[in-house]
């Protein structure tokens, strides 16, 4: 991007800034014309003697204005910020964040897969143990006619297992939907909170920066005005041809001292203001970050509590349903031909293994949930770092652009006043600030430059 103060380059003069709606309206009213134009320089020897139309090359006049150094500094700051916008200390690159997210996703997938394998293993193990226990119970009840122990056990497991799997699948799906909805609500709330806090901080910072910048501009002008008579007197002395070398050097050194005094005073003020703004920026950032963290923590806490509550409810309801599936009377599905005593014994055995399995599986699931929570926190931190940094950089850039716009307008208004006086003195009754090439009009730039430069004095 070209720097604005080099805007006299016709070919590349289009500005890339986003237009506000108002300026868009004003621009588009021009029946589809493009936006903006710049001044172009050129010689002025061709002005026709009777022409009463003049022009100035505003870009050149801006460069000799007393506040140009401030404008240039703002341009440099803006450019540095644009370059750093993707730098490490302001925001992390999208690619970096994407890479870290991928790594986290892999970790999460691995943890989920591991949990599934562990649960399947436990299920097999408990089924095997239950079958063995049922077979042993049936073997102990010798003389009973009907199907063998292994057959009964496997029939019980198969019927209960199929129904339990269906119920569990449905319950997990509901839980997942509920969790997704809560997380989405969470994200919306955090985003809205972040915007609100950023805007509040931006308003406070912007107001302070604007006030300081205006004070600096006023101070610079005030200094220039206060010293103008002294400077003029020194310049008058210098223009005296009869002045000897020593006296001339003395006057020059006095002029230099005057310049230095003004420059030092303004520099000191700017340094103070910069420190003030830096401290303010730090404070606002810290306050906003603190408030954000506090409120985000509360939101997350509420959400986690809700998810945990629903998880417990789902688990209890699941256990209840699976228990009911096991048989109409709360026991397992036991084929006929088994004595009532044996039936009661088998029901108790099934219930015991079911409880043991649930207890063991809960531990594995809890372990997985802990891993997932850790990873989710890291995901959120990653997103937070990225969006915080991006919005911070963008806000700072907007502030700087606004400051630059205000300062530029202030300078142009002052130049306009000087040019108007000059035009009236020269009997020129129309002056424009934007021409693309010299033609027959009078170029007032050189004369205006002298007047603008005298503002330094």
């Amino acid at each position, binding site marked *: 991007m070209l720097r604005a103060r080099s805007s006299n380059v016709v070919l590349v003069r289009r500005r890339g800034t986003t237009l506000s709606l108002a300026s868009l309206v*004003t621009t*588009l009213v*021009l029946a589809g014309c493009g936006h903006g134009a710049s001044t172009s*320089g050129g010689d002025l020897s061709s002005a026709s003697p009777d022409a009463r*139309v003049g022009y100035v090359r505003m870009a050149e006049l801006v460069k000799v204005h007393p506040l140009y150094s401030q404008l240039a500094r703002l341009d*440099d700051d803006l450019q540095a910020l644009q370059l750093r916008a993707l*730098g490490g200390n302001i925001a992390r690159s999208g690619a970096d964040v994407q890479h870290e997210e991928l790594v986290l996703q892999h970790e999460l997938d691995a943890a989920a897969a591991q949990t599934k394998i562990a649960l399947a293993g436990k299920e097999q193990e408990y089924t095997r143990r239950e079958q063995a226990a049922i077979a042993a119970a049936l073997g102990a009840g010798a003389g009973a006619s009907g199907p063998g122990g292994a057959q009964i056990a496997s029939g019980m497991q198969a019927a209960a297992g199929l129904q339990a799997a269906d119920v569990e699948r449905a319950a997990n799906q509901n839980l997942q939907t509920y969790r997704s909805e809560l997380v989405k609500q969470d994200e919306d709330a955090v985003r809205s909170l972040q915007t609100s806090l950023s805007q509040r901080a931006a308003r406070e910072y912007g107001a302070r920066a604007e006030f300081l910048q205006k004070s600096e501009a006023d101070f610079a002008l005030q200094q220039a005005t206060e010293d103008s008579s002294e400077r003029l007197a020194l310049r008058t002395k210098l223009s005296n041809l009869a002045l000897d070398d020593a006296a001339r050097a003395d006057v020059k050194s006095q002029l230099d001292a005057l310049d230095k005094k003004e420059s030092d005073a303004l520099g000191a003020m700017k340094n103070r203001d910069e420190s003030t703004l830096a401290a303010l920026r730090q404070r606002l950032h810290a306050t906003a970050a603190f408030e954000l963290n506090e409120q985000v923590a509360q939101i997350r806490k509420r959400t986690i509590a809700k998810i945990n509550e629903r998880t417990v409810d789902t688990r209890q309801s699941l256990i209840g349903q699976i228990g009911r599936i096991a048989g109409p009377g709360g026991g397992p599905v036991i084929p006929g031909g088994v004595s009532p005593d044996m039936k009661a014994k088998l029901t108790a055995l099934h219930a015991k293994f079911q409880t043991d399995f649930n207890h063991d599986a809960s531990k594995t699931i809890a372990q997985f949930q802990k891993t997932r929570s850790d990873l989710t926190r890291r995901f959120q931190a990653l997103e937070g770092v990225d969006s915080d940094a991006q919005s911070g950089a963008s806000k700072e850039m907007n502030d700087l652009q606004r400051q630059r716009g205000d300062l530029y307008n202030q300078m142009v208004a002052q130049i306009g006043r000087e*040019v108007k006086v000059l035009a009236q003195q020269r009997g020129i*009754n129309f002056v424009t600030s934007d021409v*693309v090439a010299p033609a027959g009009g009078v170029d007032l730039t050189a004369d205006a430059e002298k007047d603008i430069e005298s503002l330094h004095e």
Partner: protein
Amino acid sequence: MMREKLRVPPFFRRRAALALGALLLGSALLAPATLAADVTDIGFVDQAALSSIPSFTRANRDLAAYKAGLDREFAKRMRGVRDQNTQARIAQEFQNKLNQRQHDVFGPLFERARVAIASVASSKNLSVVVDKRIVIFGGQDVTSSVVDLLNGPGDPIPPVNTPPPSNVGFVDQTQIDALPKLKAANDDFQKFQSDQQQIAQSKMKSAKSDADKQQVLKDYQSAVSDKQKQEIAPLVDQTRNAISDVAKKRGLLLVIDRSNLIYGGTDITSDVTSALK
């Protein structure tokens, strides 16, 4: 705008010379301020003022509400999208939607404003109307007349006559920039600048101190500035000279960019593009 030179028959030359002398003397006795107050046939409009009339503010509100809805939809669509191409495609899609809405909402208003400006300019015998932003001094401010016309009942009536010849010329810089050699140079420069920006960004990432960062910025600025001087500046001079030559041949006093012109003026774009080919 500027009166054309009168062809005076020889019989009247002496008398005319005397009259002219008297006129010049009279003019010299008048204060410069009086001269400055002369009315020229250059007018200007403050377009910011036009944007605050009720029909425009209503349109602005309508567009702002539409944009707010679009922003929400955009945020929803962008959630979780990390791929830069997809991001760019979505952003473009939403930008197109907004542009279309702007066109629909403001198109009729702009046309009405254009007719109103032309009507006022014609009634005041103006040969050209420019944007207030480029006027430092002089000219006729026709903003209030245009606002009155736009706020009045019914549609403004287009002027019967075309604008009178004007000594204010204009060029459409976008057409000039589109000439092959200029476009090639411009594209080349943009690419160079973009490459330099990437290099600087990457250096900025690894820069440890403020001094290092300042140096990165300086190097970047210097590289871009050198390239500009080498490749762009000569073409800029060439273009400016061509515009200037055409303007002088056509007896123009000023040449402005088309984007600053609202009504009238003398279009010299085709002459300039021919001269540059």
